[in-house]
């Protein structure tokens, strides 16, 4: 039955559209989903999962475990980069700054991977908690601080870049679109509850999976293009990092979830979050904070290697891992 699950995840329309985009880009098709349209869909998706999480939170009673879970999530996001940094330095010959910037991506999360995991779990009939959306939001930012700490030694002490302003990174990071929309929608869903949701669910719930197909077609195109342009800048050590690092994070997180005796669904989601890597919020922050690090390295790894791996093989694997840990 678990193999069944894996297969049905991989052969879902969502994943197949991603693969379609990936191949189109690798075959050098010029087709694109217009940037403005894709960004609009991204906002829709974040509103939808925020609302859904919020409504579910409004129905549940939240115990103190959620605070422990929140603390654990923040710690995971903060600590994974240190592990990732050392792994990178050992297996590839990447310099400090690039290793630090890349490590930051792996501490943070990919919300699309999270959504895809939710869909796979839902399909398998496994229940998840609404507050996991809040956990996801909490894990976006701490990794950026770790990246800065890791890069500190590699940075020249030459003073500020012209035009920089105190707090610009903080504002960029804490108020980026995904934090604002996710957290905002979560709160709105929480406040208005099931009743408020009723009228807007024909837009935010019913067509959700279809929109995801369209969005993942675009993600496939992006991932394929990232890979095609960037793989020359990476050696085998670095490329393999894009696959073994999520597995390491997954294994560690699985242990933690067992210790916290979390439910099957939440275990699978936390594993997925830990194993996923950012390709929106962190790259933007890194260009500001560590401009010497090369986007062609970290974006190729997180978007071109880890994201496709997680979406196709990773998620079924993480669900199996969760099943094994929980049972």
């Amino acid at each position, binding site marked *: 039955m678990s193999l069944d699950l894996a297969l049905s995840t991989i052969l879902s329309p969502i994943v197949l559209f991603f693969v379609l985009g990936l191949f189109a880009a690798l075959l050098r098709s010029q087709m694109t989903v217009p940037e403005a349209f894709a960004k609009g869909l991204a906002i829709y998706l974040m509103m939808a999962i925020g609302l859904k999480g919020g409504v579910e939170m409004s129905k549940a009673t939240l115990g103190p475990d959620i605070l422990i879970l929140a603390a654990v999530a923040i710690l995971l996001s903060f600590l994974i980069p240190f592990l990732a940094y050392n792994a990178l330095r050992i297996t590839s010959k990447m310099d400090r700054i690039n290793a630090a910037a890349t490590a930051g991506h792996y501490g943070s999360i990919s919300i699309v991977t999270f959504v895809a995991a939710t869909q796979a779990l839902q399909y398998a009939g496994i229940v998840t908690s609404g507050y996991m959306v809040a956990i996801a939001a909490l894990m976006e930012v701490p990794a950026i601080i770790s990246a800065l700490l890791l890069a500190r030694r590699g940075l020249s002490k030459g003073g500020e*870049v*012209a*035009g*920089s302003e105190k707090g610009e990174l903080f504002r960029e990071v804490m108020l980026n679109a995904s934090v604002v929309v996710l957290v905002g929608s979560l709160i709105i869903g929480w406040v208005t509850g099931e009743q408020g949701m009723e009228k807007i669910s024909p837009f935010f719930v019913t067509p959700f999976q279809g929109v995801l197909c369209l969005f993942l077609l675009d993600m496939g195109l*992006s991932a394929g293009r990232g890979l095609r342009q960037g793989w020359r800048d990476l050696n085998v050590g670095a490329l393999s990092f894009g696959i073994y690092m999520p597995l390491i994070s997954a294994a560690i997180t699985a242990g933690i979830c067992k210790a916290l005796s979390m439910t099957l669904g939440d275990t699978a989601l936390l594993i997925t979050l830990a194993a996923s890597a950012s390709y929106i919020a*962190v790259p933007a922050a890194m*260009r500001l904070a560590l401009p010497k690090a090369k986007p062609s390295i970290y*974006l190729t790894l997180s978007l071109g290697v880890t994201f496709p791996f997680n979406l196709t093989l990773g998620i079924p694997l993480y669900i199996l891992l969760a099943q094994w840990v929980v049972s």
Partner: protein
Amino acid sequence: MFSKKRIELIIEKPAFKRACRVFEDSGVTGYTALPCMAGYGNGNRWQRGTDLSASRDMVMIISIVDEDLLPKITQQLENLIGAHIGVLSLADVQVIRDDRF
């Protein structure tokens, strides 16, 4: 007709706000930014819309300034493109109203 300088700065979008502050702080009367859609440098091509973070997009900032402001502003911009991806060039232009710039 009066002679002025036209500053053209092509800079990565994540550093756009910093570039704006540099221009504003150096006392220019104004500047205008245009979106770029693709480019090439160092053997690498980039293309807008390829990357969801938009962290590889570039923008072009154009400012018509008085010669007097050049030393300060070019020094600051040099610092900026020392850290960030960017290309700076200056050209001579003529304008109709001297006091506008």
